[in-house]
C-alpha cells in the first residue's frame, strides 16, 4: 500500500545529507514551508545549495537557514530585499556563493530538470551580463541563450491538501515554484494543512500528481509571515 505520510516535520526531513541541493518553494510571503525549514535547521545538514526565488526575508525560513551558516550556495533570482539582512551579511562576508538567475529562466530550468530536457534556448538574458560565458544562438532572428536544467536532491514545498498517494493541491499564489520543484528533486517533501482520503481530491484539479511526491507531513496551522 502506498502511504507517503510521515508523522512529523523532523521525520519528513530525515536523511538530508551535508552538501545536498535543496529546492525550497515559496515566493515572498506565499507558499514558504517554514516548518520543514525549521526541521531542517534542527536536523543539522550543512554546506547546502539552496534553490529558491529569494534569499530569505527577516529571521525565519531560508533567512534562518542562512543565519545558521548552513547554506554554502544559493541559486535565486532576487536576493536583495529590505529584510534580507542575513543573506546580505553572508554575502559581504563572502561565506555564501550566489548564482543569480532571471526568474523565468529559474522556473524553466527547474521544469527542464523535471521533464528530462537536456538544455534549452531561451531569449531571456540574451545580450546581458547574466548570459556572459554562456552559449548563444540566433534563432529566427532573435538572440537566445542556452540554459541547463537545475536538479535537486530534495525539494521542500508547502501545499494545501494531499492524499496518501501524495497528490497535491495548492492555495492561490502559494503555488508559485512548488509544482515545478516537485518534479525536479529526487525526493520531494510536502507540508500540507490536511490529508484527505484517497479519491477526495478531484482528478481534474490535482496540480501535482503523487508520482512527484515522496513524503507528506501535516502542519495544520503553518506559520504565516507578515508582508515583507
Amino acid at each position, binding site marked *: 500500500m502506498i502511504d507517503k505520510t510521515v508523522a512529523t516535520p523532523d521525520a519528513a526531513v530525515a536523511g538530508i545529507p551535508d552538501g545536498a541541493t535543496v529546492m525550497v518553494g515559496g*515566493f*515572498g*510571503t506565499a507558499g514558504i514551508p517554514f516548518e520543514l525549514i525549521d526541521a531542517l535547521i534542527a536536523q543539522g545538514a550543512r554546506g547546502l545549495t539552496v534553490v529558491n526565488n529569494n534569499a530569505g526575508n527577516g529571521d525565519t525560513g531560508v533567512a534562518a537557514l542562512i543565519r545558521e551558516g548552513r547554506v554554502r550556495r544559493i541559486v535565486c533570482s532576487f536576493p536583495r530585499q529590505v529584510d534580507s539582512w542575513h543573506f546580505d551579511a553572508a554575502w559581504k562576508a563572502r561565506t555564501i556563493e550566489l548564482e543569480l538567475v*532571471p526568474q523565468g529562466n529559474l522556473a524553466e530550468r527547474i521544469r527542464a530538470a523535471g521533464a528530462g530536457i537536456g538544455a534549452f534556448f531561451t531569449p*531571456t538574458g540574451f545580450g546581458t551580463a547574466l548570459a556572459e560565458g554562456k552559449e548563444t544562438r540566433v534563432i529566427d532572428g532573435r538572440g537566445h541563450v542556452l540554459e541547463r536544467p537545475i536538479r535537486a536532491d530534495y525539494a521542500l514545498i508547502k501545499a494545501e491538501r494531499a492524499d496518501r498517494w501524495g497528490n497535491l493541491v495548492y492555495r492561490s499564489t502559494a503555488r508559485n515554484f512548488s509544482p515545478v520543484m516537485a518534479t525536479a528533486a529526487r525526493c520531494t517533501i510536502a507540508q500540507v494543512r490536511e490529508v484527505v482520503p484517497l479519491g477526495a481530491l478531484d482528478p481534474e484539479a490535482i496540480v501535482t500528481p503523487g508520482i512527484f511526491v515522496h513524503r507528506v507531513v501535516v502542519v495544520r496551522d503553518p506559520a504565516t509571515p507578515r508582508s515583507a
Partner: protein
Amino acid sequence: MASLPRWTHDEMARRVAQDIPDGAYVNLGIGLPTRVANHLPPGREIVLHSENGVLGMGPAPAPGREDPELINAGKQPVTLLPGGAYFHSADSFAMMRGGHLDVCVLGAFQVSVRGDLANWHTGAPDAIPAVGGAMDLALGAKQVFVMMEHLTKAGASKLVAQCAYPVTALACVARVYTDLAVLDIGPQGPVVREIVPGLAFGELQRLSGVALVAPGR
C-alpha cells in the same frame, strides 16, 4: 529645472492606462507601473497578470482582509477577480516568454534610442545583484511600455544613445512615458507623440541629449 512643467506620477499613470485597450492582458511592473491599475478607464475589462502565478488580479483587499498567500510580484496583498486563475511559475513565465501578454509596463533607469532597457542593476560593484523577473518581463509582451522620469535628479537624460547601466534586454521597448513626454521607439529613434503642456519641442530636445523625431513627422 524647478520651473519645468511636468506630469505627476498619477497623470503619467492615467496616460499609460489610456493606451491599454479593452480586453488586454497586462503585466504592471513593480513601482511606478503598479499605479496604472488605479487609472484603468471604467468600461474596459483589462486582465492583470502577475508573474508569481495569477491572471485576473483585482485591487488591494480591504484593511484586515489581507492574505499573505495571495500576493502580487511586488509581494503586496491583492485580490482575485471572477474569471481569474492561478498557475505555477513555469506556466506563468511561459505565458510571458511566449508573447501572450499584450502589454508590460516597466520602470527604467535608462532606455536607449534603439529600445534597449536598463532597469535591473546600477552596476555599482559592491551592490548585491538582484534581477527577479525583470529580464523576462522586458521580453514578455507584444508591447513593452516604460514609465520613468525624463531626467535623473542631476538633470541627465534617461533617454540615452547607449545604456551606461547593465542592460535588461536589447531592443525591447516600444513606448516611453515620462513626466515630460510620450515617445515611441521608432526605427529612426524616439518619436515624440506628446509633450507636457507648456514645454516646447525644442526645449524637450535640448533636455533629452539624443536626437528626437518631432511629432507629426
